[in-house]
Each structure stands twice: as structure tokens, then as C-alpha cells.
């Protein structure tokens, strides 16, 4: 395979984003859980809740450091590797990124210092406020980055200006309240909450299996299962909402997620298992459930979901239309002052499809003279590889339903006060919780893949192909940085996981004098400050 700058830049972006996204969901969820636990501490005055906040806070800190470290790259990488994209959309896309800094990053980064260092310098309520500020900051940052990302998926509130060669904002309001962005935001933060809940649940289950830190483990489990249950429901419901939105504006993403090559009569059937083949452009086999797909995607019995073939045909029309826009644009660029109003009018009529003309540029220098075969090839290039889309989506959804199931079970045991039953009779459930710790990460990464790989070949849906957004760099340069990031991130990840495990093994401070084994059953906690027995 020949290496090229576009593929390497995509690989680098995917790599740095996926690494970054190993740390972000846990930060988003754990910050809220910390704030919740600390609220309980402030309201009840029971020391054990403070010790919980400190323990989970230590793990939060180890994770947070790498979230910050890997996040640094994200802010600058658009300019480094995607210079033409940056110039083309900065007027729209830059604003949410800047506001993210103003509204979110400053808040979380400034108060995170107080969270760790302010225990003895602040009153209880002041410290609680600092913790909530961190939680709010992290969640706001998700909001703004998803407004930016949502715009790449559904570029509303903007228009291409031929005189400045870029997309420009027409309505900032539309960019903010982009339905895709809003659905994605709730879906993504919910995924973060589930991640943190499963993390806390799994580690607490491990302590219960080991018979250590029982008092803290039980309380943590109660909080985690309740929070996890609500978030798992939310992540699935809002995931469904994201799918619904995708079907409105990214029909190709939907069709490839479902390996739906041909348009079916409504309501379409749902492929549970399939073997999509990109060469033959069909499924080698598929197990279908009738009607389900149509119901989920359109929420109706009569609306039709277009299949890949029909969408490709539609793309051919748009490519032809785009070529007309492209041609008019060349004339406008050559003589911006003197070009006739008729040319500008032609451009305006077809400007919506300009991006499609860029799809032809790998095949021909002049889109106006493209042959039928070239248009055909360009149109098929709008189809992302179906196989990984189909399975990444299914793995994510399966994880989602599993999280609902598992958190429901634990929520039942904790809310009915039967967590000791788990320890005594249902130890296998605790084992399941421990072994489920990695699953939310897998689900999150799959979700990122479906959303971003599923947008290909577009960097901005239907407006600018990814290949056109890249910087003018050499293969060597991108290879160097790619290798550098992989080496650096992998080293740091190994260190991070090792420290996590070390601090999980050390465990929370039970408030017992050193050397005293906590008894098997829970008993009143004796700490520095006496607290009432529960």
C-alpha cells in the first residue's frame, strides 16, 4: 500500500482522538460522581463520604492528567494536519472551540487545583463548590466540542462565500442549537457517566470479592449502580435519537451502519448479522428481522429508508450539479470584480453541491469534463467501508444494553439492601462486574468510530471531502509525528494504567489505624472525628 498524506493524517487524527477519548469519558462521569458524593458528605457530615471522595479523586487525578495531556494535541491538530479545512471553516468551527476554552477549560483547570489542594484551606461548602465547578467545566467542554463536531456532521447556519473561499456563519444560533449537536452531547456525556459508573462498580465489586474496604465499596456501589442505571438508559435513548438525526441528514451513515444496500419497502427489516462485501457491493449473507429497522430509523410505518445504491445514484446527480458550481467558482475567482451576475447566480443555484465536485478531483482536473465512469467512481467513494461500520455499531449497541442489564441488577441489590447477598451467594455477579470494567471504553471508541468513520469521505458532511482538507505536508513529516505520538502516548498509557492499578490495590483510607484489618462485616466507622453509627 502506498502511503499518502491524507491517509496518514487521518490515521494520526484517529489515533490521537481515540487515545484522548480513553480518558475523557471517565473524567466527565467521575467528576459528577465526585461532586455527588461530596454533596452527600456536606449534607450528612459523615466522614466516610469524604474518604470516598478522596479515594475516587486520586484515581480521577491520575486519569485527568492524561486527559489534559492528550487534549493539548486536539486543539492544535486541526491547524497542523488539516490546514485547508481550518481555513475553510474557521469562521464557523473555531468559535465553539474558543468558547470551550473560555467557558469550560478555565473553569475545570482552575478549580481542579482547589479540589486536590484546597481541603484544608476552604470551608466544606467552598470545597464542594470547587468540585462542582470542575464537574461543570468538564461537562461544558463536552457541550462545546460536540457543537463543533455536530456542525461537521450537519453544517447548519452557514454558507460558502466564493470571495473569501470559505464557509461563513449566517446564524450562530442555528450552529448552537443544531439538533445533531444536542443529541450527540447528551449521548456522549451519558456514555461518560456510564463509563465512570461501570468503573466504580467494577472496582467496588473487586473490593467486595477481596473482603476489603467493605463500607466504602458498598456505598460506592449504590451510587454507581443508580447513576449507571439512569445513564445507561439515557445513553441508549439518546443514541437512538442520534440515529434518528443521522437518518435525517446523513443517510449514507445510516445505510452503512445497517449494511442496507437496497431500498426496501417500508418499514425496512433489520440485519442482526450480516457479511457485507465492498467488492461485490452486497451482503454475502444476512439474518433479518422484519420491520424493526424502519420503525427505529423513521419512527413510522410508511417512511422509506434509502439503501446504499439509491444514495450513490443521488450522489451522481449532486456531483454533476457540483461540477457546475465548481466551474462558476473558477470564473468568480479569476475575475472577482468583473464577473457577471449570471455566473454568480449559477454559482448560488448550485453552491450546495460544490463539495461533491471536489470528489472528482482525484480522478480529473476539470470536473465539468468528467466521464460517466469518473462520476461513477466518485459517487461510490461516498460509501464508507460497510463491514467495520456494521459491526462497530452492533458492538456499541450490545454494550449499551448489557450496561442497562448489569446496572439494573446491581441497582436492585443495592436499593433493597441486599449487597451482602452478593458477597455471600452471588459472587459470580461481582466477577461479572469486575470483568466488565473495559466494556464502556470499547463502547465509547466504537461510538467514535461509527460517528467519524461513518462521515467519510467528508470532513464536513457534503461540503468538503476529507482529502481536500489536508495540509500541504510531506509523508515523512506526518510519519514522524505519527510515530512520535504513538510512542509518547503508549508510554504514558502504560504508566497511567500501572499507577491506576497500584492505587486501586492500595485502596481507600478506611479510617482504621494502620495494620488493623477491617472486619468482614460492616461496622461503625471509627475515624479521627467520631461519626454516628449507621
Amino acid at each position, binding site marked *: 500500500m502506498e502511503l499518502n498524506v491524507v491517509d496518514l493524517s487521518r490515521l494520526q487524527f484517529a489515533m490521537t482522538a481515540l487515545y484522548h477519548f480513553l480518558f475523557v469519558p471517565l473524567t466527565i462521569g467521575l467528576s459528577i460522581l465526585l461532586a455527588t458524593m461530596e454533596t452527600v458528605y456536606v449534607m450528612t457530615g459523615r466522614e466516610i463520604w469524604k474518604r470516598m471522595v478522596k479515594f475516587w479523586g486520586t484515581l480521577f487525578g491520575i486519569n485527568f492528567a492524561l486527559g*489534559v495531556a492528550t487534549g493539548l494535541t486536539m486543539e*492544535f491538530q486541526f*491547524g497542523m494536519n488539516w490546514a485547508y479545512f*481550518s481555513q475553510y471553516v474557521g469562521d464557523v468551527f473555531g468559535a465553539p472551540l474558543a*468558547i470551550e*476554552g473560555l467557558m469550560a477549560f478555565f473553569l475545570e483547570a482552575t478549580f481542579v487545583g482547589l479540589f486536590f489542594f484546597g481541603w484544608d484551606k476552604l470551608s466544606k461548602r467552598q470545597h464542594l463548590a470547587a468540585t462542582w465547578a470542575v464537574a461543570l467545566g468538564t461537562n461544558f467542554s463536552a457541550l462545546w466540542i460536540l457543537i463543533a463536531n455536530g456542525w461537521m456532521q450537519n453544517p447548519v447556519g452557514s454558507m460558502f*462565500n466564493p470571495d473569501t473561499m470559505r464557509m461563513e*456563519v449566517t446564524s450562530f444560533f442555528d450552529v448552537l442549537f443544531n439538533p445533531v449537536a444536542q443529541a450527540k452531547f447528551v449521548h456522549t456525556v451519558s456514555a461518560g457517566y456510564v463509563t465512570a459508573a461501570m468503573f466504580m462498580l467494577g472496582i467496588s465489586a473487586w473490593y467486595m470479592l477481596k473482603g476489603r474496604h467493605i463500607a466504602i465499596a458498598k456505598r460506592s456501589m449504590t451510587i454507581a449502580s443508580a447513576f449507571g442505571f439512569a445513564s445507561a438508559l439515557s445513553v441508549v435513548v439518546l443514541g437512538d435519537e442520534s440515529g434518528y438525526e443521522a437518518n435525517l441528514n446523513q443517510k449514507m451513515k445510516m445505510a452503512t451502519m445497517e449494511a442496507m444496500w437496497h431500498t426496501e419497502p417500508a418499514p425496512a427489516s433489520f440485519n442482526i448479522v450480516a457479511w457485507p462485501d465492498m467488492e461485490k457491493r452486497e451482503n454475502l449473507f444476512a439474518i433479518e428481522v422484519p420491520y424493526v429497522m424502519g420503525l427505529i430509523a423513521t419512527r413510522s410505518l410508511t417512511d422509506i429508508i434509502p439503501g446504499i445504491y439509491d444514495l450513490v445514484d443521488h450522489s451522481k446527480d449532486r456531483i454533476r450539479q457540483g461540477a457546475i458550481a465548481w466551474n462558476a467558482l473558477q470564473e468568480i475567482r479569476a475575475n472577482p470584480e468583473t464577473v457577471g451576475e449570471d455566473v454568480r447566480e449559477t454559482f448560488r443555484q448550485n453552491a450546495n453541491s460544490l463539495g461533491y465536485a471536489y470528489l472528482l478531483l482525484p480522478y480529473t482536473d476539470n470536473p465539468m469534463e468528467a466521464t460517466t465512469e469518473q462520476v461513477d467512481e466518485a459517487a461510490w467513494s461516498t460509501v464508507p467501508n460497510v463491514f467495520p461500520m456494521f459491526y462497530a455499531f452492533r458492538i456499541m449497541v450490545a454494550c449499551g444494553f448489557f450496561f442497562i442489564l448489569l446496572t439494573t441488577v446491581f441497582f436492585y441489590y443495592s436499593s433493597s439492601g441486599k449487597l451482602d447477598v452478593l458477597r455471600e451467594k452471588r459472587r459470580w455477579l461481582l466477577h461479572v462486574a469486575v470483568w466488565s470494567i473495559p466494556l464502556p471504553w470499547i463502547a465509547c471508541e466504537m461510538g467514535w468510530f461509527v460517528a467519524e468513520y461513518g462521515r467519510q469521505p467528508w470532513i464536513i458532511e457534503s461540503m468538503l471531502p476529507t482529502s481536500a482538507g489536508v495540509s500541504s505536508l510531506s509523508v515523512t513529516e506526518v510519519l514522524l509525528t505519527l510515530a512520535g505520538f504513538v510512542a509518547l502516548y503508549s508510554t504514558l498509557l502504560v504508566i497511567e494504567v500501572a499507577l491506576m492499578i497500584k492505587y486501586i490495590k492500595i485502596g481507600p483510607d478506611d479510617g482504621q489505624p494502620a495494620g488493623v484489618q477491617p472486619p468482614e462485616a460492616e461496622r461503625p466507622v471509627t475515624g479521627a472525628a467520631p461519626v454516628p453509627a449507621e
Partner: protein
Amino acid sequence: MVLYELIDYSTLKIIWWVLLGVLLIGFAVTDGFDMGVGALLPFVAETDIERRVVINTIGPTWEGNQVWFILGGGAIFAAWPPLYAISFSGFYLAMFVVLAAMILRPVSFKYRSKRPDPSWRTAWDWALFTGSFVPALVFGVAVGNVLLGVPFKLDSDLRMTYEGSFFGLFSPFTLLCGLLSVSMLVMHGSVWLVMRASGDIAQRARRFGSLAAILGIVLFALGGYLVFSGYVEGFRITSEVDPNMAANPLAKQAVIEGGAWMANYTAYPILWVVPGLGFLGLLGTLVLLQSKMEMLIFVFSKWAVVGIIATVGVTMFPFILPSSVQPEASLTVWDASSTHRTLFNMLVATLIFLPLILVYTAWVYKVLWGKVDEETIERDNHTAY
């Protein structure tokens, strides 16, 4: 009449040019002392406990300071998209070096104290040094290159090609700028340590600070002379420019000319105040460093940073990123900004959030204020870095 038309497009461009300066200066003044402290760490502190003292003078607050850098990136993207695109892709490998170095910082702070092993801790000390010294140097080198002009071209679709190389970034003048940046930030970091640490550490910091201030004065003067004498050529716009024009960097003519960077000072002699402020800050810091007026030294040190960075800005105005190979493609305040609407919206966001940020940051500093010494570290052994 739409809301954003309340402020002229050209006025907004100037406001965003000023805000760009505010962000860069905010970064250099706040994260600047963190970098200075990090660069000094292996030299100003010898034992583990001393190093912990040094780290803990900035440990709780450095993270917020670094956001100035991230916000700088975001704000340039929003307000000056071509600047964001061309500078970061042009300085591609240099940017990678900066990022790789800066990535080491959050982990160094957090992970160093997680294990008692001396070799573990020494490794993180040097990581922190790298994460502080390298960006300080590269930022200066980058500014030097901007003053010289950057070898980029724009085609009619505004697609940029870059004709330089990584090693091409390093020339005598740009290295001078890099060293000036390092001395400025090391001086600033030393002053911070004088203020927040005590005893031997503060004493050593005074020595390093004085040395850095002297070096700063010499390098700033030498750099100024090279520009003044025309050794470093400047850029001049030679065509009519409408300050309210839509963003199109190719709509003007410009030339490279010895002495062009002095034009603003000739036209507005009052601007000499700006480099003057830089010198005053450097000199004041040098003179006062041996005194006990710790807060006042810090004020002078801040003014040195403000003066030096602002000097670059007013020297180049209206240029923000000149091209050495296609001068007419240079980015200027007038032709490289976002739209009228975006500049206005972003100004509103800034006016809402920036004051808030300043207020809560000040409060956090106030809460965490006080000398850090070996006793405080022993006392807070569990929470301190």
C-alpha cells in the same frame, strides 16, 4: 440593522488584534512563570524535598495557566483562521516538538509523587524541565521567524504551500529570539520562586533571576538593534487597503524592505513607550531582585514580559504573519480575520467570560497563597505533589 453592525468591521479587527495580544501575554505572564520554574527545577533545587517545594509553588495553579495556551489556539482559530492554518501547518514539526514537550507537563506534576523511588522522581524532574524549557525556546524561535517572514505561498483557492524546513527555522536571529524568550521566562520564574519559596531556594533563584535579567536586557537590545539597523528586513503594504474589506489575503501588494519594521515608530513616536516598558521591566527586576520587595519585583517582571511581547506586535502592525516568498500573500489585520459576525459574537463571549475567569482565578490564587517550604510539604505530605 443587525446587532453585529453596532461595531465597525475594521474596529472589530483591531479589537481582535489586541485580544490576540492579550491572550499571548496572558499565557506568557501566567504559564510563563510555570515554564520558568520548570526550566529552573533541576538547578535551583537539589534534594527531593527542595524539588517538591519548587513544584508545589506552581502545582495547584499551573493547570489553569496552561489554558491560556489552549484558549490562544482556539481564539486564533475562531478570529484568525488563516493564521491558525498557516502557522501551525507551516511550523509543523516545531509544533509537534512543542506539543510533545508540553504533554509531559501534566503527567510530570501528577505522577512524580506517586512513587518514592528516586530514579522515578529524577526522570519526571527532567520531563518537567523539557516540558518547560523546550516550548519557551521554540516559541521565541517561532516569533523570530514571524519577524523575518515565513516561506509560505497561497494559490488562488487560498491553499497554502510551505517552502521551509524544520532546520530552516533556526538562524542566528531566530535563536537570539529563542534565547530572549527563555531568559525572559526564566527570570519571571525566578521572581516567582523568590516570592513563593524561601531560604536556599529563594537565594539561588535570585542568582538565576539576575543572570536571566542581564541576558534579557542584552538580547532584547541586540534584537532591537538588528531590526533598527535593517539587518532584519520588514514588510510594507504598497497598495490601497480598505480596512473593512472581506478577508482575502491575496487582494493587496506588499514588499520586503530594510527598515520597514521601524515605520510605525517613525509615524507614531509614542510607540517607543512599548519597548521602553520592556527595558524598564527587565531593569527594575534586576535592580530589585536583591531587595525584599517581592511583590514589586514580580510586578516589574510582569511588565517586562508584557513590554517585550507587545513590542513584537506594534512593530509588525498591521502584519500578523508575513510571507518571505510571496509578500503579497502575507496575513494582515485587515485581510485575515473571520467575518464581521463571528468577530462580534466572539467579542460578546469574551466580554462575558473573561472577567469571570479573572475573578475566579484571582480567588483561587488568594486561597492558595502563602510561602511553600519544607514544613508545609511535610504537613501536607499526602496531598502535595
